[in-house]
């Protein structure tokens, strides 16, 4: 994916050709404004190109493997799965094996970035039930032809001022995703589960889901984004989520990345918070060959508060990167951030947590921690907390650690007859459980505990 884009775009540009191919498959209602926005975004991307190692934000994460491969954008429709594997995969999709047992939720399912929950042959998945009045939960594609001004503004902003090259690329290929709007004073009681399945499609494809979440004044909602790899493939998922929380709104956001171990995943979460709003984010990353998650939170109103929790698990030669940035813009804003990582084999983790307390953000409070467990001599972590404090009356703290399993604890367990490998697993699970224990949705907590092999949390109901 060599970048030689100049503005205006050459008709022969391969990215433009991909865009034309995608648009030829989109419904006739795909609006002209959006077609123009996509081209502007592609031009922005062309100006920047993919980030290189000299870019400070990408110093430890080399995306040349993504940059050098040909871009093939996944097209809408279940038929885009390809010929050979399509039947078998469609069967697996129907089993719903990626669901969390006992999780009551509103569900939208996507295959390679395109929603299948509205397709007539799979509409049994579209189980939205009755929604509170004025609430919208819909595939983004269904909202684009007559896009609400807020949504249109959001898409235009991301295209004209993308925070990085991947956000620009996502804007350039925006075609589907999810739209959630909850009006003032309404609480959506059940979580919305957005399931992004990455499936084989006669060779690697790239998908660009876009999620837009708008919570009105004092509104409440929980959203789970699951990214699930279906079968051996090297797909790229490049996702962008935006959360806008109005005054007093409360949003719990869960992002679970379980992509195929040979795939690539780049995700961005942008959060804007008004006065007294509360946002909690969980980012669990345990898949993909290379993954990068950016989280940017702007506390734009007094009393706004955010909590970011994260867990990343790496083995083999996996690379997992989290970059977070929290901007405290006004007084009495509150942030806390707790990330933990477990790295085995020759995997590599990156954690970069920036907190900026702006001059007007007096009486604010920011706390951050990042603790890492290295299970092998060859695993690596680069952890970098970065506090920039421009106000004098604030409370801030941060702590980072990198450690190995405690040999005294290991001996204690083994001396009671527990086999050494089991003892190591127990101690690793205990490290992970501390994050899982904070997940308020029990079905999600137990499902993740099972996926991450944590028998203790999964079995907590028994003892």
């Amino acid at each position, binding site marked *: 994916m060599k970048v030689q884009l100049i503005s205006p775009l050459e008709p022969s540009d391969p990215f433009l050709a991909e865009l034309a191919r995608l648009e030829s498959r989109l419904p006739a209602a795909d609006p002209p404004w959006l077609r123009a926005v996509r081209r502007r975004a592609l031009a922005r991307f062309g100006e920047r190109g993919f980030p290189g190692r000299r870019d400070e934000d990408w110093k430890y994460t080399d995306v040349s493997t993504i940059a050098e491969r040909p871009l093939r954008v996944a097209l809408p429709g279940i038929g885009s799965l390809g010929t050979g594997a399509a039947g078998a995969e469609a069967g697996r999709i129907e089993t719903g094996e990626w669901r969390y047992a006992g999780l009551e939720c509103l569900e939208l399912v996507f295959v390679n970035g395109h929603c299948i929950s509205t397709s007539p042959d799979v509409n049994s998945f579209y189980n939205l039930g009755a929604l509170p009045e004025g609430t919208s939960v819909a595939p983004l594609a269904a909202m684009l032809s007559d896009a609400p001004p807020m949504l249109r503004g959001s898409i235009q902003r991301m295209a004209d001022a993308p925070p990085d090259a991947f956000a620009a690329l996502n804007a350039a290929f925006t075609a589907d995703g999810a739209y959630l709007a909850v009006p003032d004073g309404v609480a959506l009681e059940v979580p919305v589960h957005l399931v992004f399945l990455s499936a084989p499609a006669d060779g690697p494809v790239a998908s660009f889901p876009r999620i837009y979440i708008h919570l009105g004044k004092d509104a409440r909602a929980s959203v789970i984004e699951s990214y699930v790899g279906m079968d051996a493939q090297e797909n790229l998922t490049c996702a962008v989520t935006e959360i806008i929380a109005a005054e007093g709104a409360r949003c719990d956001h869960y992002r679970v990345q379980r992509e195929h171990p040979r795939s690539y995943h780049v995700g961005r979460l942008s959060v804007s918070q008004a006065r007294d709003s509360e946002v909690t984010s969980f980012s669990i990353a345990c898949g993909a060959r290379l993954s990068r998650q950016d989280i940017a939170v702007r506390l734009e109103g007094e009393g706004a508060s955010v909590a970011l929790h994260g867990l990343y698990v790496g083995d083999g030669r996996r690379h997992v990167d989290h970059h977070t940035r929290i901007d405290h813009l006004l007084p009495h804003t509150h942030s806390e951030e707790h990330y933990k990582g477990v790295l085995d084999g020759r995997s590599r983790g990156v954690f970069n947590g920036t907190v900026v307390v702006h001059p007007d953000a007096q009486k604010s409070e920011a706390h951050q921690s990042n603790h890492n467990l290295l299970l092998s001599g060859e695993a690596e972590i680069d952890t970098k907390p970065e506090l920039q404090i421009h106000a004098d009356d604030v409370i801030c703290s941060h702590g980072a650690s990198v450690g190995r399993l*405690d040999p005294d604890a290991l001996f204690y367990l*083994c001396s*009671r007859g*527990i086999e050494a490998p089991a003892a190591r697993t127990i101690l690793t699970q205990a490290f992970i459980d501390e994050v899982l224990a904070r997940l308020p949705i029990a079905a999600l907590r137990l499902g993740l505990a099972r996926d991450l092999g944590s028998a203790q949390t999964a079995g907590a109901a028994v*003892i």
Partner: protein
Amino acid sequence: MLSVHDLEVGIADKPILKGINLEVGSGEVHAIMGPNASGKSTLAHVLAGREGYEVTAGGVTFDGEDLLALSPEERAHRGVFLAFQYPVAIPGVNNAYFLKAALNAGRKYRGLAELDAIEFLNLVKEKLKIVHLDEALLKRAVNEGFSGGEKKRNEVFQMAVLEPRLAILDETDSGLDIDALKLVAEGVNRLRDGQRSFVVVTHYQRLLHYVVPDRVHVLSGGRIVRSGDRGLALDLEKHGYDWVKEAAA
């Protein structure tokens, strides 16, 4: 049952044990006494299989098997149990989960069916009574936030659940007030059944008022300088360790 012969052990080239001989028969209680830094805890740790010690001469057999060739978990499976002087706090691992894993690992080794959650719970409820510990302890993280007395009682509780053939108590009396000491001693005595053997490592004689030993050995400078019956412990209390050191010199 346990046979220690001419055992020499060092840490990083520094000799600690300089030729220990000890025979512990089935059902016997042996006390190992001695001043600080005499090598008492080293002996306890080497028997349990802690890393970091180098055995330079001699050996240890347990029922005729070379104990030192076994991993800590293999020793546990054969019935060796160490009650730690400083039980390790393990945040995030609850006591019940830990103990069930330990018990079932041992049962698996012996070819017994693993206990399910209900069977396990019924068993441990009985055993908790032995050391007068509350059931709430099961849900707490292993030794985390436990008082000194709770930690030591938790060691005896684990011993009661795992039912070892040889229990080594490493200064189980240290840091306990007299009431806690009595509770621990009562727990140990209830586990004496004529078959199970004990090696009680202690600095002071006071535990031996309650857990009465068959034999007392005095360790000093890495050697057993004196052995006798429980009367030796009483002599030590009266005369102090200098008396044995002088006698040995």
